[in-house]
Every structure is written in C-alpha cells, then in structure tokens.
C-alpha cells in the first residue's frame, strides 16, 4: 500500500514537472494550471504515503536518509504550493519540481535503515521535523533569491527577455524572500533549541563537537546575519539575494556533506 501511494505521488510529481517545462517553453498558462493541479494531487498522495508508512513502521518516519529525503521532498512541494497560491509565479515549477522529483527518485535507491533505540524519542522527531521544515523554507529563500537575481539582470540589461514576462516584480520577490527567510529561521531556531535540550540529556560525549551540529550552527549564523542586514540595516537587492543563496549552500552542506565527517548525525 505504501509503495502504491509512493508511486502515485511520484507519478503526479513527474506529470507536474513535465507540464511546468512545457508551460515554460510554450508560454501557455493552461499548462501551468495542469502542473499545479498535478502537484496538488501528488502532495495528497505523498502525505498519505508518509502517514501510512509511519503507521507501518510504528514510528515517526524520519530518521534515515531515505525517510529524510521523502520528508524533505514533501516540505519542498508544500513550499511550492504555498508560494504559488500566494504569488502565482509561473516559472516556480521548473525550479521547485526537479528537486522534488530527484529526491523522490533517490529514495528508491537508498535502503531503509532501522532506527537506533536511542533515537526513538519524540524530542528527536520534533527536532528533525522542525529542521526539515526550516530547510524547505530556506530552499524557498534560495529560489526567491535566484529569481531576484534573474529579474534584476533582465531589468539592468535593458533587453528584458525570457524571465521578464514570467517572473513577478522585484518587490514581490523581495517580499517572498523575506517571508521564507523569517519562516525558515524561526523553524531552525526552534529545531536547534529542541535538539540541544535533547542532546544535553541523552548525549554523553560532547555534542558540540559533532560536525553536523557545527555546520548547522554556522548555517544558523549566516541566516542570523542575513536577517540583521536585511531588517536592521535595510540592505536590499543583489547582495542580500546572494547571501540567501550562500545560506542554502550551507544548508546543503550540513544536510549531505557532513555525512563524510562522521558523528552522531550520520545517516545509516
């Protein structure tokens, strides 16, 4: 049953991705609508899949890399649906959906891992959920920053072309960027607090030296700095967008790269 739900979700994501690409190439809005509807259906199947596989395992499905990717894909498509319903950006699909599809596909090739007993705790589940929500939002920040750079370049070049028509105004993109940033930062802060409380109680040998903790702290620092320059100093535009994209690279590094350095957070 879980497999069936997964396939249905994956299939509809693929349909959505395909139609986003067609919409971008042909510039016909009807394909955008088809794409969004497909993603909506896929998202429903995806949600059902996560719930179902959670019941099947008898635990929150969020500890191995496999489950992690499935959840991350879910959060990213949630971000897509929210951002589209609010801002109606036509090219959103070709940026969000390849990531979703790739993550869904990669879970097929990764073996499910048993959960170590020590991690069977609602603190851990809460920590990981919050972190994934944060990472999904930061992906939104990354995309909004990228869109800002593209649109700014089109406007500065004085020969507005490919993206000019399909992207919203710089102000809208700035607004989108800031909203994702604030949401992501809030989730991450909460997630880190929960993680630290749990680690203080259960993790005996120096959690502060865990590479993933260090990377996450660095990421958090980058986003804190970003919020400071954006809200307090009032920076705007290219530099802020670039910093937001840098922040997401740091997210990717702490999510995947750190696996090579060992520590308690390595996916098994």
């Amino acid at each position: 049953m879980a497999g069936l739900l997964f396939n249905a979700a994956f299939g509809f994501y693929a349909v959505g991705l395909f139609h986003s690409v067609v919409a971008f190439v042909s510039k016909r809005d009807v394909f955008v609508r088809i794409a969004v509807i497909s993603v909506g259906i896929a998202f429903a199947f995806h949600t059902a899949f996560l719930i179902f596989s959670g019941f099947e395992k008898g635990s929150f499905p969020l500890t191995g890399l496999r489950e992690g990717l499935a959840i991350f894909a879910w959060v990213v498509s949630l971000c897509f649906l929210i951002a589209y319903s609010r801002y109606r950006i036509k090219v959103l699909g070709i940026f969000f959906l390849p990531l979703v599809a790739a993550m869904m596909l990669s879970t097929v090739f990764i073996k499910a891992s048993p959960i170590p007993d020590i991690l069977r705790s609602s603190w851990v589940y809460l920590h990981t959920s919050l972190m994934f929500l944060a990472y999904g939002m930061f992906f939104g920040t990354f995309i909004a920053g990228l869109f800002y750079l593209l649109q700014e370049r089109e406007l500065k070049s004085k020969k507005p072309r490919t993206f000019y028509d399909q992207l919203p105004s710089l102000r809208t993109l700035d607004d989108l960027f800031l909203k994702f940033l604030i949401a992501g930062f809030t989730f991450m802060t909460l997630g880190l607090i929960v993680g630290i409380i749990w680690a203080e109680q259960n993790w005996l040998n120096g959690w502060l030296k865990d590479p993933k903790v260090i990377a996450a702290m660095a990421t958090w620092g980058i986003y804190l700095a970003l919020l400071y320059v954006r809200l307090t100093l009032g920076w705007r535009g290219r530099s802020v967008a670039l910093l937001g994209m840098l922040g997401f690279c740091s997210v990717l590094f702490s999510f995947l790269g750190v696996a090579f350095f060992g520590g308690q957070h390595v996916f098994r």
Partner: protein
Amino acid sequence: MELTLVGLNHKTAPIDLREEIAFAEAALPCALQTLRSEFGFGEALIISTCNRVEILADDSRTRTSSDQIAAFLSHYHGVDLSKFDSHLYFYRKDDLVRHVFRVASSLDSMVPGEAQILGQLKQAYSAAQDAGTIGKLLSRLIPHAFYVAKRVRRETQIGNSCVSVSSVAVELARKIFGELEGQEILLLGAGKMSELAARSLMKAGASRIRVANRTHQKAIEVASTFGGDVARFDELEESMAQSDIIIVSTGADKHIVDRTLVETVLRRRKFSPIFIIDISVPRNVSPEVNEIENAFLYDIDDLQSVVSSHLQERSQEAELGEDIVGYEVTNFARICEGVTVGPLVKSFRQKLESICLEELGKDEKGFTVEDREKVERLFLRAAHRIAHPLIREMKKGDENPNRQFHNLEMIKKAFNLKDPK
C-alpha cells in the same frame, strides 16, 4: 449567392484619401440605407476606422457588384472615382473570408495585435443589424470572424506586449515596484514625452507627483496640470530621496544626475529601489548610474529598443495568428458547404417518422383501422417530442461555429442522414 468586399487601408492609401472616404459613425445608418435602396444590395456592412474603409456586400449581380460599391463610395462622398480607384482592393470567396478574419484578428492592423479593431467591427455589425442589412451570408461570416479573433487573441501572445514608450515605462515600473499604488514620481524638467510618461504612470496608480524645473514658474504650470506639487530644483537630493520614479528631461547639455548623487540618494532611501527614466537628448543622467545596485536607469533609446523588440515579438506571434486564420478559412468553407440547418432538420424529422412507421408496420396485424391511425398518431407525437429539444439545439447555434458544425455532423452520422443538397 456570395459576398464581395471593396476597400482601402493604411497600406494602399494615404491618410488624406482615407479621411475623404471615411464614414462617421453617425452617418452609417444612412449610408447603409443608400446601399440598400439606391444600389439594391440585400446585405451590406461598412467598416470605417482611421486606418481602413471597407464595404462588404452581397454579390447578387455577379461581376458588377464591386463596381457598384466603388460607385457608391464615389457617389456618397462626392469624390471622383478616378481619384481613389487605384487604391482600392477587391476580394471574393476564400480571399474575402481570409481578409475579414485577418482584419478582425488585428493581423492586418498598422500595429498588429491592437485591440480596438474588434470593437470597431462589432459596432459596424450592430449598425448594419439595426439598418437591416445583415442577411444569411453576413450573419454567418461576421460572428465567425469574431470567434476567430478571440481564438487568435487567446492562443497567441499577440496582444500581450506594450508597444509605446509610455506603456513600456509603466510596465518596467511594475516589474520593479509591483503595484504602483503609493509610488511617488519626480518630474525633472518638462517636455511632451516626459509628461506623457508621467501621465501614464499616474493613470497606472502612482499616488503623487512632484515637479522640479530650473524655471520655477514653469514648474508651477506643469504641476498644476497634474495636480501635483512643486519641488525646488536646487534641492535635488532631497526630492530624489522621496521619489521612487524619476523622469528626467531638462534640456541641459550635461549630466545633472551622476553616480555619486544616486548613491547618496539610495543610502538615504535605505536602498529602496529607484527607477530613473532619462528622456532628455543629450542625456542628463550619467549611464554609470545603471551599475549601482537597486538603481535602474533607462534612457530614451533603451525604451525604444524595448518597444521594437516587443513589435518584433508581435510579428512572430502574428505568424501563429495567420496559421489559425488559415485553418479557420478552410473550416468556414466546410461549414458553409456542409451545414444548412433547415434541410437537415427536415430530413431528421423525416427519418424519425419513417422509423416510427417501419416499427408500426412490423406489428400492425391485430389493429383495426381506427386503432392503427391512433397508434400512428401517438408514435409520431412521441417522436416529435423527443426530437424537439434536439432540433432546438441544432437551430440555436453556438458561439463556437466549429462546435455547432461538429454537433450537426454528429447527428447526421448518428441517424445516417443524407447530405441535404
């Protein structure tokens, strides 16, 4: 019976000639009446805009109809035929259908994709309807042309881009600021083009305008036409910091807005973006300004090049439109040939009746003559009641003529009806 078209447009005739031949809107009923009573046309339609004058009429007297129309133009306007004869074009049959579809879809317009022509055609059609000069032929052709025009507009991007300097300025401002509500404009200097741009921006929602001019009196004059305020020309930094969109055209022969000034202004604005439109020739804003983050500078050449790239896009989309028109011309011919609703309805009724009688004939042995007549009447009444809603739908037609055609084709096929000819 067929239609014929005689006309001239911006490509074939100079403007003064078009003006002489044009019909004022109020004169249309009278002109249509003249065509009908004095020239004997049963159907007629006059399209008269600033770019074209065209007359569509029935071709009942074969070859002479188009000459009659030309004679009417000469007679009605009191212009000698030889003066405009060589500028006229004549269309019949498929070429006529194609031409009318192209006109309605704005593919034949001076600026392809402009939206006015469809409205003008609709007015012309309703004027002709009021004058009673719309018959079978025009009532089929013109609604189909409306349909084609809508299709072209929907399926191509022909009408989607701005093709004037001020509309491009508005569009660019929207791409920077989103909605223009709450945006403030500073008009530096004066000039026809810059005032036009400012007016478009105000119309698009910008909330406030300030005017600064070297001559204070001039600033007051211009500000009063906009209902705006006057800003001091020597406090440029102050007024620029308060404005989001700055239109410059001072007639000075040097840069009066340079990099340092804009950088200072942006710092005072907390880096909120600023859009500078430099309409002056020679330029009054240093081109370096565009390199500053959050400052967007367009000079008149930049705006012009956006306009011309949009025009180019339109002509590409126009090719798509031509394909649609070509397809619809064939379709229209098919529809005219294949479907005349009346005979089809008749043969549909006959078919139903013959089915009833056939079924009755199979099992009429036990009936007395009276019984048989009664049953036959009952059968036929039931058949007519069943057919009635279908026939109503067949006659009603559809906004989409192709769909109506297919519906009729389906009925023909389902009941195995012969082509009524």
